[in-house]
């Protein structure tokens, strides 16, 4: 059976700018990611203080998902939205930072707050906690964005009613090089699924 689903919204964050459904909504040039992320958080009037404690990968995923989910998640309802993310560097950026805190045996102070982010799917947990999602989720590590795999995975979740909607895409962060492309797939929408 042919499955036809749609992208109902998408957000791209790269080069210190935020694009929502193809329109640039925010930009802050010549600043490091942490500063850009903080400015974007304030620009979109987000209110979730735990954001500041997140690592950069989670901040990136949180910003992009928050922009899309803001209008999709209904408080008090069962929001059956699956989260399916992928990237190339896993949580390597934070892994390196954590390694730095345990490298010196004479000055050995592993940080619990850094350690909790040494898995890439923690960003999915942050989003789930934020929106009280108890839905399907997965985080894959690929060399490059695998559009066919993600499309098939999202279609499968919708076809088997494991999810009513699927927020999926690419969330990559490693040492100031970053890119988030998140999009919402659902059975109704106004755009065909993007293959590339």
């Amino acid at each position, binding site marked *: 059976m042919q499955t036809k689903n749609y992208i109902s919204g998408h957000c791209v964050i790269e080069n210190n700018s935020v694009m929502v459904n193809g329109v640039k909504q925010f930009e802050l040039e010549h600043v490091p990611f942490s500063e850009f992320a*903080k400015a974007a958080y304030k620009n979109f009037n987000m209110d979730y203080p735990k954001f*500041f404690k997140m690592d950069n990968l989670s901040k990136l995923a949180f910003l992009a998902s928050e922009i899309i989910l803001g209008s999709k998640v209904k408080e008090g309802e069962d929001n059956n939205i699956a989260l399916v993310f992928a990237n190339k560097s896993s949580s390597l950026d934070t892994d390196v930072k954590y390694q730095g805190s345990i490298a010196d045996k004479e000055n050995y*102070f592993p940080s619990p*707050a850094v350690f909790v982010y040494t898995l890439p799917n923690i960003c999915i947990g942050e989003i789930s906690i934020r929106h009280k999602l108890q839905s399907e989720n997965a985080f894959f590590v690929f060399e490059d964005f695998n559009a066919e795999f993600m499309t098939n995975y999202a279609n499968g979740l919708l076809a088997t009613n494991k999810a009513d909607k699927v927020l999926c895409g690419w969330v990559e962060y490693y040492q100031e090089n970053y890119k988030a492309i998140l999009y919402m797939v659902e059975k109704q929408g106004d755009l065909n699924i993007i293959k590339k």
Partner: protein
Amino acid sequence: MEALKQELKGKIIEVLNLEDIAVEEINDNDALFGDGLGLDSIDALELIVLLDKDYGIKLTDPKAGKSIFQSVETMASYITENRTK
């Protein structure tokens, strides 16, 4: 003691990334957890590391943290009595 409390407030804000809170906004007797600053269990572990790293205090009994980390006041008192650096 007053200087230590000010120093502690700055360190708590820094290590716990409490971006929207200024040193002046934390009162000596404000609760650090629960309804106060709203810290969580990971923050508690981070405070244990702070005691060790900056004041040479190794907290071997996690249960002791409940009374030590009640407020900046209780933290400062404990540090004053037990610091090794």
